[in-house]
């Protein structure tokens, strides 16, 4: 078991049972007992008033030479030969991590042109491993994972990142499985321990109810996928120079084949994800009619309408407006949260917004923890007043 109970200290108070997110603690003969459900989240350690629960020290993997692994890699995905915007976000965070470690930042690019590779250098990469094997033009999991695996085994990067997109989330697991290393999904924040090089991988857990920090201390490279529209792009420098390394690989094969690619985009999704201003409403609106007020403020500011899960679950607004863990992740310049309490599952979808304005009756609402400006008050009083004053200002 990852966690052990000291039976001499355990008083059988059952505090830990309620704290366990996965029901991994039971009572046996008056003492706590860890069952097979344990996911080693360590929550119970702090809950036990007697200090009877402790972590089992894990032995380091024998023979893994962590020092031999250097540099940060990001995987730049492309569709139809054009690099996706997530690649530039990865270069933003990747540059920071590499600088913190005094290391190089490299990019891996499959199936795109040399000019796309140049662009990645201008956005912060020191070098680009570019492979133009024809089999890589369309996304197929097997050749992508075969080639990335072989590049990692040859060059030994310390950290490898991809976007938490349908592409990154599909083929990165195969690479991690093959290399025998850890992969953390859908991170919303990354930091590096400057000395050990351990990547602190922060992500929402339990349906976005809480955040978790994940480590991969004994294996390299440490791999993670990063949620799109959470990280800021780095600096663009037209004159930045870097190296493009052409990669040729024979014998790449695929048992899947893409027959057709069909584009299908919802207007609302595009509006939300590209909007500079988003006005969102939640449970505090009380009914579907409240969204007219949200709509009016959004139109006045030239913004898009968002919502919390609670408002969608109540049937006040369609799911395509939902922001959060099971909806869209957005990153506007200004985000208005009206009558939204701020459950973690909502926060993880909008907390990278530059400025967050929260309007809520309850001064204890967690939304105020992430707000830049907080207005404690009745939204039905505040928002109409705000609309009136904006109209006056625009008229003047």
């Amino acid at each position: 078991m990852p966690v052990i109970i000291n039976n001499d200290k355990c008083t059988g108070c059952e505090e830990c049972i309620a704290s366990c997110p996965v029901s991994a603690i039971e009572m046996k003969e008056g003492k706590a007992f860890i069952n097979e459900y344990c996911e080693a989240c360590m929550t119970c350690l702090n809950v036990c008033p007697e200090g009877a629960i402790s972590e089992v020290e894990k032995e380091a993997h024998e023979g893994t030479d962590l020092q031999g692994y250097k540099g940060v890699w990001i995987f730049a995905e492309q569709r139809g030969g054009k690099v996706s915007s997530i690649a530039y976000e990865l270069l933003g965070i990747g540059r920071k991590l590499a600088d913190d470690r005094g290391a190089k930042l490299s990019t891996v690019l499959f199936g795109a042109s040399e000019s796309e590779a140049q662009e990645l250098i201008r956005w912060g990469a020191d070098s680009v491993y570019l492979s133009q094997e024809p089999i890589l033009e369309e996304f197929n999991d097997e050749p992508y994972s075969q080639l990335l695996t072989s590049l990692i085994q040859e060059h030994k990067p310390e950290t490898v990142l991809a976007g938490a997109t349908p592409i990154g989330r599909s083929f990165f697991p195969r690479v991690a499985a093959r290399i025998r290393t850890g992969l953390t999904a859908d991170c919303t924040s990354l930091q590096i321990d400057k000395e050990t090089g351990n990547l602190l991988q922060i992500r929402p857990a339990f349906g976005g109810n809480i955040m978790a920090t994940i480590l991969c201390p004994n294996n390299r490279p440490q791999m993670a996928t990063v949620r799109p529209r959470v990280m800021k792009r780095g600096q663009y420098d037209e004159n930045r120079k870097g190296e493009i390394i052409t990669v040729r690989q024979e014998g790449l094969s695929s048992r899947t084949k893409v027959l057709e690619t069909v584009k299908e985009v919802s207007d609302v999704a595009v509006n939300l994800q590209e909007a500079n201003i988003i006005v969102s409403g939640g449970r505090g609106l009380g009914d579907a009619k409240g969204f007219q007020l949200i709509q009016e403020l959004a139109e006045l500011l030239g913004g898009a309408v968002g919502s919390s899960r609670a408002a969608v679950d109540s049937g006040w607004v369609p799911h395509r407006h939902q922001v959060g863990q099971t909806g869209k992740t957005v990153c506007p310049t200004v985000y208005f949260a009206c009558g939204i309490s701020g459950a973690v599952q909502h926060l993880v979808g909008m907390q990278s917004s530059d400025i967050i304005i929260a309007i809520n009756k309850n001064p204890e609402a967690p939304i105020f923890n992430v707000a830049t400006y907080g207005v404690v008050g009745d939204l039905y009083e505040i928002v109409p007043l705000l609309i009136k004053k904006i109209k006056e200002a625009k008229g003047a």
Partner: protein
Amino acid sequence: MNIVVCIKQVPDTAEVRINPETGTLIREGVPSIINPFDLHAIEAGLFLKEKTGGKVTVLTMGPPQAETALREAIAMGADEGVLLSDRAFAGSDTWATSFTLSKAIAKLGADVILCGKQAIDGDTAQVGPETAEFLNIPHISYVRKIEDIANSSIRVQRLMDEGYDVVESALPVLLTVVRELNEPRLPSLKGKMAAKKAVIQTWGQADIMADANDLGLKGSPTQVKNIFSPEARSDRKILQGTPEEQVDALMQELRGIKCL
């Protein structure tokens, strides 16, 4: 055709609440359910069986009480259930979980393996693709439609960021499925009777002939360092006064950031 559906019993995360004082999860009273995406995988398995004939086996890894999830799947129409349960499996991350599942699937033998796109408690979406890699078979993620199945190949629609791809794969294959794929059926009366009578096989480490170094906590490269609620922003400003004054202050800030 042998069809294996991997399912997970999870806490209904929509019901989970946070204790505001300790910042920890309140698990009490939260029901255990079959991961909602896995219901669509079960339905897809039953659909394929109706088309091609064969057998649907549901497979799960978890504590003894996860047997309930297998019986629910049998009530929907699955033929058999296998429970992977052993203290050696505890603390598994996605690497160790996928490794364990792949050993069991290799023992069962399968032409098509189905998984939900992700579990709602972990939200990683990694176990399906990692399992396919361990089995050395292809996989297709985010399947939203099964267009055709033949003896040695399958054609599906794979959901992408801006639309979908039509993808063909050789068999055996592993598919992870999204909600749009189908509407899961409800258990039938006959199914419920079968579920009651079904004998669930339980397999441990010895049954799948795995090395202890590849299982559970020992076989897991990742570790959870801590769990926390997000902290307050340091630069936040709570606007004071009457509603009128608050809105005036807000207007000033909005002008300052050129929102107006």
